[in-house]
């Protein structure tokens, strides 16, 4: 008989029961609805053994890779330690090792850590300051850079966390960092698939991580990055991205400005419009979207209508909450 472990509690598992049955019978509250593997509301994650493949049917490949599964379709063959999607893993403590303004209102924040911490480029974490105030930020670097995490933190009007990072947080101080979350990241395989990445504002951060990760892993298909802002001041790391585009044959970079702009090096228009009109069809493409939630939702739809498969469109829409005060 197998045993399930959730939050340190052990639940003996009866044969022919699903993980969902076992937990519900033990009066553990697990979100669920259809119980047929369709609605995906009972999504959980295994922290040790791989879930049976039936339990992962229909999930995005990035979720499968991280051992997510549907509790209502999971008949475990062996012991499993499981977690609900937002209640897994431990926090680590990291130390501020660098701060640098990238533009008038975007700060590069570099944290160093000693404990083991695994992530995929493009994922996000919750940063928590000592008094408990917490915000989500995307990781801008790749795991190849040893034991550091980089973030691009945009200062928001009346943003308590972002103002604190900009004005008060000093090198040497400590922050706590949640486990890495989110499914918007590069996965090795299909090295020749064309990639389209569209970001607005500090939504550039995860996309830079994904581009670098893809290049590190030998991605050979075209990689096109569009970064947009209303005014030229909202764009940043322009020289760095242009240098990368000059050095790497399969990487293209297009900075876009939708408002008034007299500088020739920027394309005029909204990044997602320009990105979408740059190709007749997105059939076979993989698409990554980060930034303004309306842009992300609209572009998801447009990319799909232009032929990208639903399973090839990646976006983490947490910006709504993180743009709160």
């Amino acid at each position, binding site marked *: 008989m197998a045993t399930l472990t959730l939050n340190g509690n052990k639940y003996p598992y009866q044969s022919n029961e699903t993980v969902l049955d076992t937990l519900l019978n033990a009066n553990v509250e697990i979100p669920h609805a259809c119980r047929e*593997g*369709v609605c*995906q509301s009972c999504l959980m994650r295994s922290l040790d053994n791989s879930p049976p493949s039936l339990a992962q049917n229909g999930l995005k490949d990035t979720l499968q890779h991280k051992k997510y599964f549907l509790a209502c379709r999971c008949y475990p063959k062996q012991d499993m330690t499981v977690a609900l999607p937002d209640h897994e893993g431990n926090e680590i403590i990291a130390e501020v090792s660098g701060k640098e303004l990238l533009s008038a209102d975007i700060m590069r924040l570099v944290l160093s850590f000693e404990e083991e911490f695994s992530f995929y480029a493009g994922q996000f974490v919750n940063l928590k300051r000592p008094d408990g105030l917490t915000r989500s930020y995307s990781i801008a670097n790749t795991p190849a850079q040893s034991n550091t995490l980089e973030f691009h933190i945009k200062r928001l009007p009346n943003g308590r966390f972002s103002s604190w990072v900009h004005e008060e947080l000093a090198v040497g101080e400590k922050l706590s960092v949640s486990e890495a979350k989110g499914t918007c990241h590069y996965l090795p395989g299909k090295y020749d698939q064309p990639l389209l990445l569209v970001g607005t504002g500090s939504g550039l951060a995860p996309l830079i991580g994904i581009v670098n990760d893809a290049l590190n892993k030998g991605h050979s298909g075209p990689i096109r990055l569009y970064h947009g802002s209303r005014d030229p001041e909202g764009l940043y790391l322009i020289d760095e991205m242009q240098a990368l585009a000059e050095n790497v044959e399969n990487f293209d970079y297009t900075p876009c400005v939708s408002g008034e702009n007299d500088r020739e090096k920027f394309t005029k228009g909204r990044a997602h419009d320009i990105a979408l009109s740059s190709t007749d069809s997105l059939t076979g493409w993989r698409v990554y979207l980060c930034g303004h939630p309306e842009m992300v939702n609209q572009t*998801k739809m447009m990319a799909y209508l232009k032929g990208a498969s639903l399973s090839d469109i990646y976006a983490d829409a947490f910006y709504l909450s993180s743009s709160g005060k």
Partner: protein
Amino acid sequence: MTESLYNRLGGEAAVNAAVDIFYRKVLGDYRINRFFGTSDMDKQIAKQRSFLTMAFGGPNNYSGKDMRNAHSRLVDMGLNEDHFNAVMEHLGATLTELKVPPALIAEAAAIAESTRGDVLGR
């Protein structure tokens, strides 16, 4: 015992393949796309998966009353026979594109057709 239509079509893998094609057809059809809100695409896709699972004779817990309730908001928006026919058309075209044999397409169409009264709230 013969295998269920759902299993003969290929189960969840078939639903996954079909949803991509079907939803694109629906959104591209000016006759009916106004019924399919574009605000939360992920939720809509989950519902289209439910629709296809049901039409494929797969596991679902929907009653006729559920079908009535799920579409009553759309009936208020003017959902009628023509719209229903358009959805049937896209269902058939999707399965044809996936090279499903005509006999199986007919079975799936019959299941969807059987919900007409409830979907249209009659």
